[in-house]
């Protein structure tokens, strides 16, 4: 195998490995979703989903995250063509949307905890906070990763491996989007029904 072929093979291995990592993460979320499904009714006399969830607020959160999935796609398109500025601008927009999403989620948590409905109140709230916060932690990791990519692109020239990395970041971000759609559907829409 020539060196050039080897480098392509390395990239292919990384992509496959990352896909598999995402699938294992999917299993982790599946365990948390199952936990939520089991504990959904275990409110221990406290409030349940219908009383706690602010649906319009969550809808805005959802739209923001979905939009960020579009914008990171644009960044990716830019990077494939080698347009540095375009990539950076779209990445920055994605980053900002991610920060807004995360802040909104934290605000939602603070309101709930402030009203005395923290994760310690009931099994339902434990599972709700854990599932949503696990997604939030993933978003935070994605943001950290994005920040590193932005700084690197700002400072250095585009390398082939940078584009590859960005593609993996894109995968990660889209994956979190899909998980959020499930959270929105199962936790908020179904869980929020009376």
């Amino acid at each position, binding site marked *: *195998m020539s*060196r050039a072929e*080897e480098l392509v*093979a390395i990239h*292919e*291995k*990384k992509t*496959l*490995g990352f896909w*598999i*990592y995402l*699938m*294992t*993460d999917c*299993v*982790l979320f599946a*365990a*948390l979703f*199952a*936990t939520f499904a*089991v*504990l959904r009714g*275990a*409110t*221990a006399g406290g409030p349940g989903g219908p009383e706690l969830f602010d649906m319009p607020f969550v809808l805005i959160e959802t739209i923001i995250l979905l939009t960020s999935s579009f914008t990171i796609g644009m960044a990716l398109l830019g990077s494939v063509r080698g347009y540095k500025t375009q990539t950076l601008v779209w990445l920055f927009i994605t980053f900002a949307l991610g920060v807004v999403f995360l802040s909104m989620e934290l605000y939602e948590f603070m309101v709930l905890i402030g009203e005395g409905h923290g*994760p*310690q*109140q*009931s*099994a*339902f709230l*434990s*599972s709700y*906070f*854990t599932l949503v916060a696990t997604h939030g932690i993933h978003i935070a990791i994605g943001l*950290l990763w994005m920040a*590193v990519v932005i700084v*690197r692109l700002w400072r250095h020239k585009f390398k082939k*491996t940078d584009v590859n990395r960005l593609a993996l970041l894109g995968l990660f971000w889209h994956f979190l989007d899909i998980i959020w759609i499930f959270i929105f559907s199962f936790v908020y829409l179904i869980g929020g029904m009376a």
Partner: protein
Amino acid sequence: MFENILQAVFGRLTLQDFVHEPIMAGAGLSMVGALILAIIGITFFKKWKWLWRNWITSLDPKKIGIMYLIVSVIMLLRGLADAMLLRAQQVLNTNGELLNSDHFQQIFSAHGSIMIFFVGMGVIFGIFNLIVPQQIGSRDVAFPFLNSVSFWLFAAGMIIINMPMVVGEFSTAGWLAYPPLSGLEYSPGVGVDYWIWALQISGIGSLLSGINFFVTIIKMRAPGMTLMKMPIFTWSVLMSVTLIMFAFPILTATLGLLALDRTLGMHFFTSMAGGNPMMYVNLIWAWGHPEVYILVLPAFGIFSEVVATFSKKRIFGYTSMVIALVAITILSFTVWLHHFFTMGGGADVNTFFGIMTMVIAIPTGVKVFNWIFTMYRGRVDFKTPMLWFMGFIATFTLGGLTGVMMSVPALDFQFHNSLFLVAHFHNMIVGGVLFGAFAAFTYWFPKFTGFTLNETLGKFAFWFWIVGFFLAFVPLYILGFMGAVRRLDHYDPSLGWQGLFIVAGIGVAIICVGVFFQLFQIAYSVWKRKENMVTSDPWDARTLEWSTNSPPPEYNFAVIPTVTTRDAFWEMKQSKKKPTEPEYEDIWLPKNSGAGAIIGLLAMTFGAAVVWHMWWLAVVAFVGIVITIIIKLSDDEPEYKLSAAKVAKHELKTKLKLQEKTV
């Protein structure tokens, strides 16, 4: 004021936590003593640089594999010492004079956790690292650096689980820590936290390693080696890592939830505020049952190689072997509830899981028959690995049959939590995984050292092991029938159980003699290695790993072989074609990296800090891990080039050495 500062710095750690009762203190002191001796020894012989360059920072899977095995052997001895204490307590049946019940509980929890996570998992990852790249004709694993991280996370978990011998106490909640006993209410101490973080950290290492080997096998096979031309061992590894990918995230989630219950006062598994302890049991076994197949499938693979090689025949029923492996992999996710038929899931639920458990015995039975048919009309050479194989067939079949007995829910209500169950799973895991590991060790030892292990001592070890094994566990089956439950630190003498416990104790003592012979065998063989020097293919083997030099060069294969058939190396030896002059090429290998060890060290610090509630230290260690990862990942993995000329020179040198040996 002063107390507040102390608490902020040291969390719940006090000087009192260093005080232990005599037996534990003795064990702890000897452990610390051995560590200090090792450090003095390394300093005295000026080996730090060598250790750092050749081992700690190495990304060579062969070296990482050896490190896995070293850790596992040490942990095997620790687990064996635990077992001896447990049996001694049951033989003497004193009322807390040898071990009080609290200490007894800590020991059986440690015995189980260590044997599964730090012996079983360590052994299989050691063997994966050593064999898989060679067997598929590859120079490396897919992600060499990730491999190093996995190992050091495993090592970090190992250190955390041994910390209670020096500071604090271990969990008393058994190897799977069922709540509510493992919850904050009934286990307020640090024991369960030690258990959680040791397993969590090493479990993440296992998960990463699983991904690594999956990609390695999928992407890095030699040209021509299609999936159905892979050796059975590689197939078994592929299935085992597939299980790891699906099962270990569940463990991560479950341990995480238990940690949240204990540290942040949540209510997943508590018996109040809506918590559901049985959900923990379901989740942990959704990981736990696949876990036993994660351990035993590679052992199946090992025995498939051993029995084919020593019978001088290709494996009987290759395709059915592969189908059986895949079937076990899928079915292993449909049987978890048989660990707790007594939950009260109802007749229909229990029936489903009972039948699925019986079904999973079918592919396993297929494999047993295939192995036996491989021996049939073969020219069987009864070397030590083959003895381990024969021992395995006997113990594993016995264990399998008792397993099918317990798969009947109505019967299981009798056996649940009894010593019958304990005897069953020791039959499977010792007779399956451990015997497999011993066979692998003897079989592949010359591959990595260039000399074989002493046969006579190996046979002694085997016979002591097998006799001791049956003496140790058959009485437990009988005791189980008589109503003895597991985790029993004393019983009423009028029950008449003591005689059987004494027999079991004698069995453990005989196993210890076997282990002594194994250690002596290694020492003796290394000492007399000049007498046992062999060429690269001492067993006239069939698979590619034997086509490289023994010990293999860092790059494994100077020229990547092209595969056309199953048992590729055997066919190469059979074909009359003269080997063509090899065309060497430049080889790129990963540069050493200390980042894996640093991440391991920080992860260990993080785990210990969370156990003791030293939050500042946990934050520091966590930030350290993140920074290390960012620094390491934001650059391409550095590699160095071994030029074709250098490879040619190295190959010539080994060739001359080999000729010297055969003369």
